[in-house]
């Protein structure tokens, strides 16, 4: 069913909170902690800015995995944003799971500005998981799969 060959390069969209994970990604960069180039980061002010529409849109247009990174619970720059994000994403991802979208294609991770190592590790793991799942064929617009 799924393509699992070595050559498969998944498209990964990472939504990162400006105050923590995006800075964590910067730290991973300045510490030269590599992770696959498949990961492309979109900067958002807070994990609570991530609308389920964005996630489905990414899958629609051909993403193979979507990851949301925010501040650790309790550390939100806006004090409550990641708490809302946590509920939203828990429910949304549970729903995607329920309609048969492989669980490994979605993930939420809390990464602080100081956690460059965690950022890089998380991305390495996530890409590996998505790669093992192969191309996303269940949740995408077929017209985009050229």
């Amino acid at each position, binding site marked *: 069913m799924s393509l699992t060959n070595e050559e498969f390069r998944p498209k990964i969209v990472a939504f990162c909170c400006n105050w923590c994970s995006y800075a964590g990604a910067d730290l991973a960069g300045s510490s030269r902690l590599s992770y696959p180039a498949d990961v492309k980061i979109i900067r958002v002010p807070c994990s609570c800015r991530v609308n389920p529409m964005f996630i489905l849109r990414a899958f629609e247009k*051909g993403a193979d995995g979507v990851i949301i990174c925010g501040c650790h619970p309790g550390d939100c720059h806006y004090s409550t944003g990641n708490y809302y994000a946590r509920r939203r994403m828990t429910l949304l991802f549970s729903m995607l799971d329920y309609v048969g979208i492989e669980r490994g294609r979605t993930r939420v991770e809390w990464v602080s500005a100081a956690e460059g190592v965690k950022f890089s590790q998380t991305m390495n793991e996530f890409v590996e998981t998505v790669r093992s799942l192969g191309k996303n064929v269940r949740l995408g617009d077929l017209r*985009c799969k050229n």
Partner: protein
Amino acid sequence: MKKIKRENLKQLFDLISSGQRLYIPIKKAGQTNYGIYAADSRVDLDTLKTVKSSKEAFFPQSETLYTVTKENRKIKITQQELEGEDFVLFGVRGCDIKGAQVLDRVFLSSPVDSFYEARRNHGIIVALACSEPEESCFCTTFGVDPTEPEGDVTTWFKGEYLYWKANTEKGERLTALCSELLTDADEAAVEEEKESIKAILSRLPYADLSLESWHGDATNEKFGSELWKELYKPCLACGTCTFVCPTCQCYDLKDYDTGSGVQRYRCWDSCMYSDFTMMAHGNNRTSQMQRFRQRFMHKLVYFPANNDGMYSCVGCGRCVDKCPASTNIVKVIKAFSKEVNSK
């Protein structure tokens, strides 16, 4: 007149579909709709009405018209290829066939819709008489004969057999293709079946539904009626009636960016929607009453006015069955005749 045993129908479908696409009512997840036949399809010719009508075979819910791609800073337009292969549309009821005739008026009059035309030319219709009409049927009001629907081939179920009569040259070709499975039959059984259907038709609850006062010249009289202000009220403004309707033909044109090009496609639209024909200045029908009125005025007044008296309702009764608010064209027709009678 030919016939084939019911139990051999699968062979017939396999045979037809071996050389061309076969659209046929298929039961999937509890509902029967037209679909492309495959060996494992659950063909369902017993359900009288598919949820969606057969119009989809000629006028799909959405279809790409052309694609725009970009090469460096230049753009390139590629037209979608027209239907180029024959296909068979099997088990079409009289109402849906009449529906196609209504659509022909729209899409085949100048300027001709080439996408529709190509499909229409390549489609071979195998009609099926309605052995068991249902309570919501009122096709006879619109001049449909469900005892002998006009297709390239007309078929009847009677007892063990499906009776088969080719009407056109296309129909003869299909008959020839299936000749190994069809055996000769006399007309008696079919005549008997037609009589049986007629008997039921006369007992249908809507058998007496009258279109008196509904005609192309009724615009002024009907448009301003106070009745609309009450009739529309249950309407939820969904598109169920328009999407199950065999004659609704409105569509929207939209673009979709696939990332490697933009596809311009058209898709069904519904005059019941608040954003139907939305323009920069807003909408020309601003209330649901107006939208509701438009649908019925179009079917029963404007369309006959422009099409030699042909109504764009065929009496299939799908909207009667499916309206979530139990409002429908029959209630509208009746409301007005009550008004006429009370005057």
